[in-house]
């Protein structure tokens, strides 16, 4: 199990500090929910952890491995950070079939072609997409697309799983099913699962730990009640 340590993280956008000296430790194999108002910098924090946003200052470390350090001039490339990411708009590659989306990521993580294919079939089956391997994203329903995004994020055996409001666009019943799926799958991640949401239901059903992002600072909260939920 590896903890994710964020220390003194600052991200500037157009001269404004979106994150300001943000510091937190996210414990491995646990689900942490990140809460905060729109524009607070939640997606920016996820981008910085994934290497998609370059912080101005600070350190990001998973276990003993430094992913980013402004003082040590370290910035590991995004694809080498072993991160699974479910984007808010899912970011499925529109030209690839479901199986190929997952197989590519598994192969990029070091599986040989045959194993990657087997693993992709298993992953799709695990998220309830068995039999839909040959469909492209446009041929899947909203809920199926969410499952595919989750399967793809998990296919690379990630050390950290990041989810940016992934279930915001599905109906209540689908959302409950997807939450159950995430509860089942997230313990397989050795590092933390960080889940950004605006939905109080997500906080109640998914959070093992809670972080609130306020004024660019990360503040640990003990329970949903502390957020006024």
């Amino acid at each position, binding site marked *: 199990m590896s903890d994710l340590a964020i220390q003194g993280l600052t991200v500037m956008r157009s001269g404004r500090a979106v994150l300001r000296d943000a510091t937190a430790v996210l414990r491995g194999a646990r689900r942490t929910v990140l809460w905060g108002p729109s524009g607070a910098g939640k997606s920016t924090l996820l981008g910085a952890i994934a290497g998609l946003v370059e912080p101005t200052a600070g350190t990001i470390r998973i276990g003993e491995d430094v992913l980013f350090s402004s003082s040590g001039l370290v910035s590991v490339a995004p694809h080498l950070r072993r991160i699974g*990411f479910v984007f808010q708009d899912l*970011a499925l590659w529109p030209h690839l079939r479901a199986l190929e989306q997952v197989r590519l990521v598994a192969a*990029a993580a070091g599986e040989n072609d045959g194993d990657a294919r087997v693993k992709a079939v298993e992953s799709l089956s695990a998220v309830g997409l068995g039999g839909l391997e040959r469909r492209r994203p446009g041929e899947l329903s909203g809920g199926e697309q969410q499952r595919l995004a989750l399967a793809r994020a998990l296919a690379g055996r990630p050390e950290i799983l990041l989810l940016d409001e992934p279930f915001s666009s599905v109906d209540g019943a689908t959302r409950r099913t997807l939450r159950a799926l995430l509860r089942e799958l997230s313990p397989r991640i050795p590092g933390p699962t960080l889940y950004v949401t605006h939905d109080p239901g997500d906080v109640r059903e998914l959070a093992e730990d809670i972080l609130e992002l306020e004024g660019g600072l990360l503040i640990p909260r003990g329970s949903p009640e502390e957020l006024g939920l």
Partner: protein
Amino acid sequence: MRKGHRAASLVWVGVCLSAAPLVAMVGRLGSNAGRLDMGAFGNGLVFALAGAGVAVVLGSSAALLAGTLDFPFRRLLTAAMALPIAAPPAFWWIGLSHLPGPLRTAHGLLPASLVAGWSLAPVPFLLTLAAVREIPGAAYDAARVALGPGVRLRRVLIPLARSGTAAGFLLAAILLLRESEIPFLFGFRTTTTEIVTQFARSFDAGGIAPHVVPLLLTVLALGLAARRPLLAALLAGPRGKRGPARHPAPAASVVLLVVAAPCLLALAGYLAPAVASRAGAWLRIPADATAVATVAEAVVSAWLAVFLGGAAAYVLRSSPGRAALLTSGLLLFCVPAAIWSIGWIELGQLLGGWTAPLVLAHVARLWGLAALGLAAAHSRLPGSLEQAARLVPVSPMRRALVLVLPPLAPSLAAVSVLIAALIFSDRDLASLLLPPGAERLMLDLYLLSANAPAAAVGALAAAVLLAGLVTAFLAVAGPWAVLRWHV
């Protein structure tokens, strides 16, 4: 008849009228059949396909870099990459051939394909860049997180940008199939050179039919093939975010600099001898009616083409006829200028010896580009903007000029410059349609480059560049002033 239907009918009448020279030309083709020169046809195809391949390798690679990476002078280098499209391949080659070294003796198909391919690299560059900037940012981020650079390029970036690359390849091939000057300069024959030389000798449209028909069918087939990827690259859905977030890679600027460098070398090839000659060559620069006519013709034609093509695309913007209009405009643009010229001459004969004004010939050929430009820009506007405009109780004309079209002014200004540049550098229409004795700057440059000293050619090239800049400025100023004046 409703007002909207009347306007749409007028658009289609205009489209049919602009195709009249082709109808006149086709009507004469069966009258005196000869034989197709297969050698020339094969040369033309090889030249076009090889040149388009070079254009795609250079242009699309540069676009993938410029679309996904951030590097020093990115905007400047992007503009430099697009610069060669401002002049025909022959202009750049004449400049390069004035440099000392082995370039002077280059000859044959392969060097010609390299030179022409490089000078048309802006076509796949701009279209691939447009396609890359339409890739959803998160889809590219997902690839950055999950995949290494090679797999990301091969399996995500290239497939998602393929509409731009495919359209760029096909358009470059079409432009090269109708190119006559580069084959003349590199000493080989193509179907287009056969059409130009044989028609100049005989003025018999029937006699060149065996060359015209296969060339016309080839460019129209390529134009139809280009239609789908081109519209896919240009007609995007309105979105908030524009393409992948660029990540820093300073070395990419070197790659773009190398690809764009021949432009500077060509200009040096022109200007160095003229500068070295001190005053002698500069005194021969034309600052007279030729320069004024060249600039005025390009600017007025561009304005008219933008007005007519833009109006047609605006009228049909939300109707099923839009795709047919854009396809018609694209296909008319694909027809080689030499064939257009002969069509206008044939039409003039049918009308009792009438000579078509050059402005009319240019506008009839190029309005489709303006229609494409307006449609591309309009597709990027949020649908709600147009809906909000429809709620405002003003006349349709005022609604268009004040509410809907002003955000499109930069795109229409850009397409106006492109059209003006194509007209400014035209050789085929001007050489066949102008009355004897009339001159244009680019025609003069070609003539002079055949036998005048390098210093004189360089001085004239400087005048051409200066006039080109004035043309570009005026071409931008027209649509910009009309659309921004109301705001």
